[in-house]
């Protein structure tokens, strides 16, 4: 079955430290992978995606993510966290053999402490 797992409900990081938000997936074919961020009382904003090519993808607001096919992971990273990065982060995957639908993770709440 197609699935996405975000194993951490919440991640706490001190401002200025590197951050990682984890995502693993399970699909039958080649995946398209996405990260979105949701600020309080707002809709989801696209951060970055992996389609093909370089395994390291750079996105908005200094975020990047690394596609690891052997570990079926797509962890979101940032070298130096900002308090303003505090938000809810969602990972999603599309199995291109199944077409259009995105399978969503449950979300990880990221808290950056000053």
């Amino acid at each position, binding site marked *: 079955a197609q699935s996405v797992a975000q194993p951490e409900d919440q991640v706490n990081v001190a401002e200025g430290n590197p951050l990682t938000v984890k995502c693993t997936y399970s699909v039958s074919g080649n995946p*398209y992978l*996405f990260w*979105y961020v949701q600020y309080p*009382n*707002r*809709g*989801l*904003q*696209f951060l970055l*995606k992996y*389609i093909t090519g370089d395994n390291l993808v750079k996105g908005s607001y200094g975020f990047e993510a690394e596609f690891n096919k052997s570990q079926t992971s797509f962890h979101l990273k940032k070298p130096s966290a900002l308090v303003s990065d505090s938000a809810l982060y*969602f990972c999603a995957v*599309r199995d*291109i053999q199944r*077409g*259009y*639908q*995105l399978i*969503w*993770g*449950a*979300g990880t709440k990221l808290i950056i402490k000053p």
Partner: protein
Amino acid sequence: GAGVSQSPSNKVTEKGKDVELRCDPISGHTALYWYRQRLGQGLEFLIYFQGNSAPDKSGLPSDRFSAERTGESVSTLTIQRTQQEDSAVYLCASSSGQAQETQYFGPGTRLLVL
């Protein structure tokens, strides 16, 4: 318009009433999605429209839920005889329809059923 818009932004209704939620996708986007997000939870797929194809209604939770789309423009999500468990944020997204393309989200409609 520049982005996906949704109206109303907030809706409070009484149990048993019908509600209609509206989504205006990005101009030119052939694909349109509706999701439900309960408080503190991830996204739940409801329905998908792609061009003139028959919509995928597989995510609609009951026959009280229905949605329509006029061509490649506005979509309305209707909930009949609302129940308290329908309280959630309803998110709309649109994309160009290609498998690798990003879904862009509206700000959502926050529905509260009393």
